[in-house]
């Protein structure tokens, strides 16, 4: 944590309060996430981990408080923020009627990328040979990998990942961890939740945010 972090956080939370169905999930939560950080949101089920990620991504509106991207409110700089944000939720955003290749294509196109080799990217997530397979016919892990594939072709600084390792095998988890470390060392940050133990990314490198409490 004492690395050469630039002074302005990439993304920061200011006094976030979240109330869902008259239940208080967290309140007055403030933190800053800098380039190079890998942050894990921890907490028991129902503590509001997913809600926090969705608020950070700008999908949900907090009850009160603000999310800042480079010290500007994300609601006022939504386009700029979205250009630098890669969010993968519980739901993969993969259409079962389309092939793996078409899915990746679509996801990259609506993010604004136009020159890339889908087969190369799919090879990186071990989906070579499945380019033409309908996503509905893929296994759960392959389905998830189709969604994760876009992590290998992005210039977004901020990655927000909700349970990225679900249905991914050990080797795949390791590859993802390596990718996260690489991304962080190139000036990006990763914010995620997971219930799985990670082998490569461990305590001093990994920052944790515990819900109900502040930083640990």
């Amino acid at each position, binding site marked *: 944590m004492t690395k050469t972090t630039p002074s302005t956080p990439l993304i920061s939370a200011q006094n976030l309060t979240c109330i869902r169905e008259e239940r208080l999930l967290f309140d007055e939560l403030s933190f800053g996430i800098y380039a190079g950080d890998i942050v894990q949101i921890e907490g028991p089920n129902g503590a509001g981990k997913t809600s926090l990620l969705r608020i950070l991504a700008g*999908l949900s509106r907090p009850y009160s408080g603000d999310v800042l991207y480079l010290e500007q409110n994300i609601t006022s700089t939504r386009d700029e923020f979205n250009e630098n944000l890669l969010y993968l*939720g519980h739901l993969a*955003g993969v259409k079962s009627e389309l092939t793996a290749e078409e899915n990746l294509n679509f*996801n990259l196109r*609506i993010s*604004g*990328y136009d020159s890339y080799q889908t087969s190369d990217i799919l090879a990186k997530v071990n989906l070579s040979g499945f380019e033409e397979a309908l996503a509905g016919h893929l296994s759960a892990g392959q389905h998830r990998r189709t969604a994760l594939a876009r992590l290998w072709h992005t*210039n977004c600084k901020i990655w927000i990942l909700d349970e990225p390792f679900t249905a991914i095998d050990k080797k795949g988890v390791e590859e993802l961890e390596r990718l996260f470390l690489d991304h962080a060392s190139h000036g990006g940050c990763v914010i995620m939740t997971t219930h799985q133990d990670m082998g490569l990314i461990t305590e001093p490198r990994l920052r944790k945010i515990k819900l109900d409490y502040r930083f640990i």
Partner: protein
Amino acid sequence: MNRGISYTSAFFTLLQRDLKIAIRHRGDIFNPLLFFIIVVTLFPLGIGPEPKILTRVAPGIIWVAALLASMLSLERLFKADYTDGSLEQMLLSPQPLAIMVLAKVLAHWILTGVPLILVSPLLAVLLHLESNSYMALMATLALGTPVLSLLGAIGVALTVGLRKGGVLLTLLILPLYIPVLIFATSAIDAAGMNLPYDGQLAIIGAMLVGCLIMAPFAIGASLRVSTN
């Protein structure tokens, strides 16, 4: 890593994807169309086969059936995208949401509105519509069904996150459909009596322009509420 934000590319990417999915799922195109045809054929059985009466009520029947068919098919406009998470990705894309929403509504209209316009003359024959009303029927459907899709999409966007949105949707959007229904049927009536009907068409056209400008923003705002 080349990256550029382009409205046209976002629009056509989405349009192309929705059309592709629909073609792989052909039922989605034919079911509303079948519904439209069956509802229209039920009326003579209910009212009686008297050609004079049918001629009188034909414009209304065809248009009410078109309203119902449009609503029925709209229900799934955002449902699949909502349940598999691609809607979230659309909301977080750097491309303007209104453009993408417009592409989705256009895809939906091409798939359900256009076939409806194409079969309408056939149904008009079954209902003994005045022979000089056919052009008016096609013209009002061509201008009016996109209005229905755009207005209906607002209601769908508001209810997409709810488990039982179906009946609610009817309550939300049918009142908004009333002006289109009134002007469209009166245009067909006027044409049947050899009166000019371009005034009514112009009003429906104005509604279409208004909806094209305003509805995408309302739909976008509603989607942001629904995915919250």
